[in-house]
């Protein structure tokens, strides 16, 4: 008798557990959907080199003298794509004036920033400080690598390299 009762109780427990499993299963869709949301992993601050910036350019050898023809081409591009927001003097318009930019930053940093602005604004301490002042994120103006190099040369000319 005792055995039979135990057996029945076991069956009941099984039924109970089965029910719980079915219930949990019916709630499963919601949970799995939540867990699927993408996790964005923020890069460690130590990964970022504030001298180089973030982008495809590592070392840019600019030499000591100016490539005047290259700088002239750079000015033409800058007039169309950059001058709406940047003066070539030190006066701030929407963004900071360009005067002195090549003395403050490495060539690679400049070329990385102007070709890859959004990711750099997210990571670079100085750019984050600038954003607090200007409040407009620098647009990506879809500059090619060659365009960026030409604009850099114009910035050097603007800073007195000859």
């Amino acid at each position, binding site marked *: 008798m005792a055995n039979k009762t135990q057996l029945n*109780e076991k069956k009941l427990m099984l039924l109970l557990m089965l029910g719980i499993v*079915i219930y949990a299963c019916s709630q499963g869709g919601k949970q799995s959907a939540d867990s699927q*949301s993408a996790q964005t992993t923020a890069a460690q601050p130590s990964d970022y080199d504030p001298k180089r910036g973030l982008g495809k350019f590592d070392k840019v050898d600019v030499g000591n003298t100016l490539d005047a023809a290259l700088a002239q081409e750079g000015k033409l591009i800058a007039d169309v*794509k950059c*001058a709406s927001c940047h003066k070539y003097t030190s006066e701030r318009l929407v963004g900071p004036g360009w005067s002195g930019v090549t003395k403050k930053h490495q060539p690679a940093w400049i070329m990385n920033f102007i070709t890859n602005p959004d990711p750099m604004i997210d990571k670079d301490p100085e750019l984050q400080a600038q954003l607090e002042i200007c409040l407009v994120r620098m647009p*990506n103006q879809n500059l090619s690598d060659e365009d960026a190099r030409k604009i850099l040369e114009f910035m050097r000319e603007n800073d007195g390299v000859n």
Partner: protein
Amino acid sequence: MKRRKHLLWLLAAMVVSISFSACKPRGAGSAVTGNAAARTYVPPGQYDEFYNFVSGGFSGQMSVYGLPSGRLFRVIPVFSVDPEKGWGFSEETKPMLETSHGFIPWDDLHHIEASFTDGMPDGKWMFANSNNTPRLARIDLATHRTAEIIEIPNTGGNHCSPFTTENSEYVIAATRFSVPPDGPGGDVPISSYKENFKGHISFVRVDKETGEFDIAFQLKTPGLNFDLSSAGKGKSNGWLFLSCYNSEQAHTLLEVSASQNDKDFILAINWKKAEEYFKAGRGTKQAVRYAHNKYNEETHSATSEIKTEVTVLDVADFEDLAYLIPCPKSPHGTDVNPTGEYIIGSGKLAALIPVFSFDKLQNAIANKDFEAEQYGGIPVVKYESALHGEVEKPGLGPLHTEFDDKGNAYTSFFVSSEIVKWNIEKLEVIDRQPTYYSVGHLMVAGGNSKKPYGKYLVAYNKITKDRFLPTGPELCHAAQLFDISGEKMELLLDFPTIGEPHYAQAVPADLIKDRSVKIYDINANKHPYIAKGESEARVERNGNTVHVYLTTIRSHFTPDNIEGIQLGDEVYFHVTNIEQDWDMPHGFAIKGAGNSELLVMPGETQTLKWVPDRTGIFPMYCTDFCSALHQEMSGYVRVSPKGSNVQLAFSTGVNPSAGE
């Protein structure tokens, strides 16, 4: 012990009942499967599997949805003006809506068909037809904009359109309302229908590279109402099948008088033969007038040209061009299955679905197995000679049929409000599912191609009633998504639509998404009034016409102070967006403009015409939130009396004194 046992039984019963109630489908009694939500759920930031291009019907537009989520991404203006996008309001887009009747701000966009290569969607273009003032449009899937619109002459109600041949060599346009041919001869008594009214079927050539339209030739037929068509594929490539109703040739109370005959027709056309005759110069040139409008992505401007000639071949003049197949009761859809062997006719007043065989049709033609009497000079193939068989009692009011990749057909039934799945070879019904309510068109992903993608079917319902929260007398049309991968069709989702969808095309996202244009290259912009950079921004007066070369970038206009405009001037704001970043349009609006806004994409130039009606100061501003300083993106225009001595002046960032 006994007490404990009872307690356990009770607990077990409760848990089991809770479990079952958790799995039970909810909702208004419709049979939705338990995990339908998960099967249509696209997590935030992830993409849908298919683009679904959906006709907007009487809205005149085409909408772009994702499947399986049913999310609306974009409404592409086609045949109707769209003030949100400046379509038909900007100087550049106005020519797109020109016709031989002048500028027309609205039409009824009926069907959509993808461009095909070897019977499969190639992701280049969508074609669309307008039903009221007959036109065809081509939508570029790189820009998701209407690239071209061509008017169709000799046509009254371009319903039987824009279905294409296997390689989109031609897009077909055929008249729903037969009319006398265009020209002065059209002034005839309506009662002379049988004598003077004609059908015309247009073959509009599509350039394989550019997509550009060209009306190659038209086929003239007796006065019939062409409803829908489907080109042959595979073995039947080279043929075209069109459903026709009103074989009675009635011209009044068609509801009754065009429903008298037991059978109307499917018209089978050997279009390769027609092409041969056309190329051999067998057509007749007819003087007509129709508009051909093209949008140029380099000048960011449309042009409209009136063309004056079309070549017409009368099918009655040729023995081997066209054949009529009797088809029960006012056929609506005519659909060719993926192998090209079967042609499904859907007599919308019939209680059966006839399935015709291409092979049997060819034999019947070869053996001249025709009825004794021709119809308007066209041989009529004997019904039984072309028939594969009939699906008995499939439902009421069959309209359209699409196909899967497993030899099954899916037919929509308006009157009995259901979708019926049936096997084409065996002519046997496999499954039927109700729609809410009264389905019109249906679409299987790739269901009109040689290799349907299967998986999803969307029913486009004509009646909505209680499916969504009520919004007054007018309700949106409801679409319903079904999973058709199993034996039984499973309802997954209802979603609202724009206007009245008549057909749609679902294309795998991978065919389109990577080719999507992000910006227009400012250096490739050849607009005659571009300001390439702020240094070129300026204001120029030429008599009473003033051209403002305006630039936009986050977040200012150049110039943003303009003085010296006078009453009586016509001012053109040529707005160039010098941004070169994806998803950075700027908007433009000015107080009192009897016009829409402009929405200018990066690298693009668009023009708003403004005729000030009073003197004073008129603010202008950017209408599309662009940055944290968007609210600051504004400016002023000063309007003075005619003949005023206020000099024309413009600036940004300085405040010159006006030259008074």
